[in-house]
Each structure stands twice: as C-alpha cells, then as structure tokens.
C-alpha cells in the first residue's frame, strides 16, 4: 500500500492531465435520449512510476489519449497496464443506460433492445405516476476468475487505409509489445488490432483480447485486457515480499527463493490452467491466483492468504 501511495504521489503531474476537462463531466442530454454513464479507470506509468485515474466522459478520454500521444511524441515512455470500465459492485459495471416512459410498448421495446445487447435490465412501475423506469447495465459476470493483465509501451500510429471512414488515416494511440506487435486501444477497452507490425507491410486488422477483471489492494475492480499467452513475460523477474524474501522467476521456468539471510532454494514455476501462478516455493506451495500484475507490483492469493510483491 505504501508503495502505491508513493507511486501515486510521483504521478501527480501526470494525473493532472486527466483533470483538464472537468467541465465536460456533465453533458447535455437531448430529451428522450437515454443518458449513458461510462466511467473508466486506467492504470499506467511514466518511467517507473505507476498511477491510475478515472475518466468519466468521452471528452476526458479523448483528452487523455491526446496528451499521451503528445508525451510519446516527446520521447516519454508511457506504459499502460490496465484499462477499461471501473466496476461499482462486483458483477456489474458502472456503464448504465436509463429509460423512463409512460408507454408500456415503448418500455417493452427498450427492454428487448437492451437485453438483445446482452445487458441486464431492471424495470419498475410507479402506480402513482403510471410511468415505467428501467436501468440497463453490462454485467461482468463470469469474468471474475480472469485476472490477466497486460503491459506495453504507448505510441501513436497512423491507421492505414481500410475503407473505414472513422479510422482511415487517423492518428490513434497504440500499445507496442517487446516484439513490436501493435495493438490499437479503443475507448471501450477492447483491442482493435493485433498481430501487426510497425513497418511498411501494413497492419493486419483483427479483433483480439477480451476484457477481464482484477482487483487492487483497495478492493477496486478493474477491467483489464486478457491476453493470457503474453502474461508469463510480465511475471519473469525478481519479486520481493515485505519480509525481505525474494523470488526470482526466470523465463526458463526455474524459480529461486532467497531468504533474508541469503539462504536459497530452487524449484520451478509455471502458469496454471486457470491463469494461476504455480510454484512450490510459495508458502504452502500450490497455485496462487494473480490479482494484480504490473511492472512494479504483483499481488497473489491462495484462500485467505495474500502476498504483495514489489519487483526488484
């Protein structure tokens, strides 16, 4: 926790870039059009300092990405860890659509439309006013077991001509992995493109990645990008527990535990079938669920036990 607070303090200057558009938080909503609330939290770092911020409107999001593009153009290294919609209660996101009407048929059509989109709908009827009220939200049910996280360096990419007038030639933020794979970030948190390379060969258009959740120390849920096949590379390295014990997880699957007195033990580590971290050197051994994974911090749990690691 102290680490996180310290990192947040270091990020104060960066966090300020998201605070420039507070006046845009309340947007006029045309009469009769359902109001859309879409709060997203992103977690990122500049250099070795982590931070996160919550963006409440599309204009805030746009401004954030514009500034990130500027920072990237100026030579800063910005790493995104998690992005997506922050959930208010386990099981549902804050992305809500509300609707009210005195017309039963209109309510019926609204309900069916929202349900067809995969949303959960709650409807009430007020006897006194004769009006129906509905709220629909996207649920994250069944994604709580997925705790994958992804990191990459941010850059800006000019989209190739694809015939899509919304994207052609646009300068968009992207993540670039160590092998130069390019992934375009979309506002809804999904990756639009993967498998392409920065270069002259153009880029392959494809959908990849899914949203999942992970939980930080404060109990906040985040939707994160789930790219399990690249996850192991972010675990490789040395991680220190708060009692000084250091675990070194190498890319050849070897694991070394170094106690505070310098005593070492060796074993192997692996990613379990359910995305868990498995290593017999962990207290009690077995496979531990990964709740948080970033360049500087990893949090794992096994039943009531939780371990917070700092990257060495």
């Amino acid at each position: 926790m102290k680490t996180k607070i310290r990192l947040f303090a270091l990020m104060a200057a960066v966090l300020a870039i998201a605070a420039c558009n507070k006046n845009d938080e309340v947007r006029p909503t045309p009469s009769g059009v359902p109001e859309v609330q879409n709060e997203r939290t992103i977690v990122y770092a500049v250099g070795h300092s982590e931070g996160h911020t919550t963006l409440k409107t599309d204009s805030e999001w746009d401004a954030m990405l514009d500034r990130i593009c500027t920072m990237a153009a100026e030579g800063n290294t910005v790493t995104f860890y998690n992005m997506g919609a922050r959930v208010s209660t386990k099981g549902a996101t804050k992305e809500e659509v509300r609707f009210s009407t005195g017309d039963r048929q209109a309510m019926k059509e609204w309900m069916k439309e929202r349900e067809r989109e995969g949303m959960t709908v709650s409807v009430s009827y007020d006897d006194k006013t004769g009006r129906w009220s509905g709220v629909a939200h996207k649920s994250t049910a069944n994604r709580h077991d997925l705790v994958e996280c992804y990191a990459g360096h941010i850059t800006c990419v000019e989209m190739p001509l694809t015939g899509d007038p919304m994207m052609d030639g646009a300068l968009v933020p992207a993540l670039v992995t160590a092998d130069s794979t390019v992934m375009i970030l979309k506002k809804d948190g999904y990756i639009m493109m993967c498998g392409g390379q920065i270069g002259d060969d153009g880029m392959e258009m494809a959908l990849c990645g899914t949203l999942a959740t992970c939980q930080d120390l404060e109990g906040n849920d985040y939707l994160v990008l789930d790219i399990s096949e690249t996850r192991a590379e972010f675990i490789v390295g040395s991680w220190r527990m708060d009692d000084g014990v250091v675990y070194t997880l190498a890319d050849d699957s070897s694991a070394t535990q170094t106690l505070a007195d310098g005593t070492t033990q060796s074993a192997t580590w692996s990613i379990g079938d359910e995305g868990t971290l498995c290593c017999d050197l962990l207290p009690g051994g077995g496979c531990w669920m990964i709740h948080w994974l970033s360049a500087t911090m990893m949090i794992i749990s096994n039943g009531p036990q939780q371990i917070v690691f700092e990257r060495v």
Partner: protein
Amino acid sequence: MLLLMLAVGCRHRTEAPAEGSLYGRYASLPETSVAQVSGFQLCDTVSVDVVLLQADSDEAWQRMKDMFAIVDSTGVTSWLADTEEPATRVKWEGQPLLRVIASHDKQAIGLYRLDSEEQYDALVDYQLNRMTNDK
C-alpha cells in the same frame, strides 16, 4: 408478480425433470424451492418451459443473487442467458436461450427457455402486463 403467477398458473403441466437439467442443477440448493413447469401458457397461443427458484429465506435470496450476479435490489431484473449457464449474459444471436427474470419482492428467479421470437415477445408482454395489473 410474474413469478407469483406461476404458482397459480392454470394451464401448465409438470414433468419429471431430466437428469442433468436445469432443475436438477438447482434442486439441491439449500433453503430454496425449485419447480419445473413445462408448457406454461403465456397467452392463448404461446407457452414456454420454465424452472422457478424460490428463496425461502433472506440468506438464500442473497446466495441466489450472488450466484446469478444480480446487483440490483428493486423492481424486476431480467437478461438473456446461455441455456447451460443462466448467469451468463448473452446477446440475441439465435435461439434457443434463456430469459432469466428475477423478482426482488418475491425473492424468486424464473428461467424461461425461449425457442422463438414469438415466445420472447409474449414473455415480455406477460411480464409488463402483470406489473401494470398491480396498479
């Protein structure tokens, strides 16, 4: 309201649930009454099969809400679901699927199997009509 109607619905028949059915999956839930109704009549021409879960205590209702990832606490909550995983919200991409309806007042959940647009339409009509009739 809607779910309560199931208890007094006049034109339906009950059948021995098949092994591995939705009924079988929930039959052993503690403090929960589970019923399967085949051919529950929504209107003169449309019927639907349904499994009804009725919580017998506040604790059982909370467990059911957790099980189905229900975060709302008022009104009637509904969603389209996978036929094998009623808690999994799905988009309308062809039938069959389930429409799950949860009544917070009645602390009950109905799992309605939909094989056609006609059933979907009739079920939403039925739900809204019953809510209106409470006026």
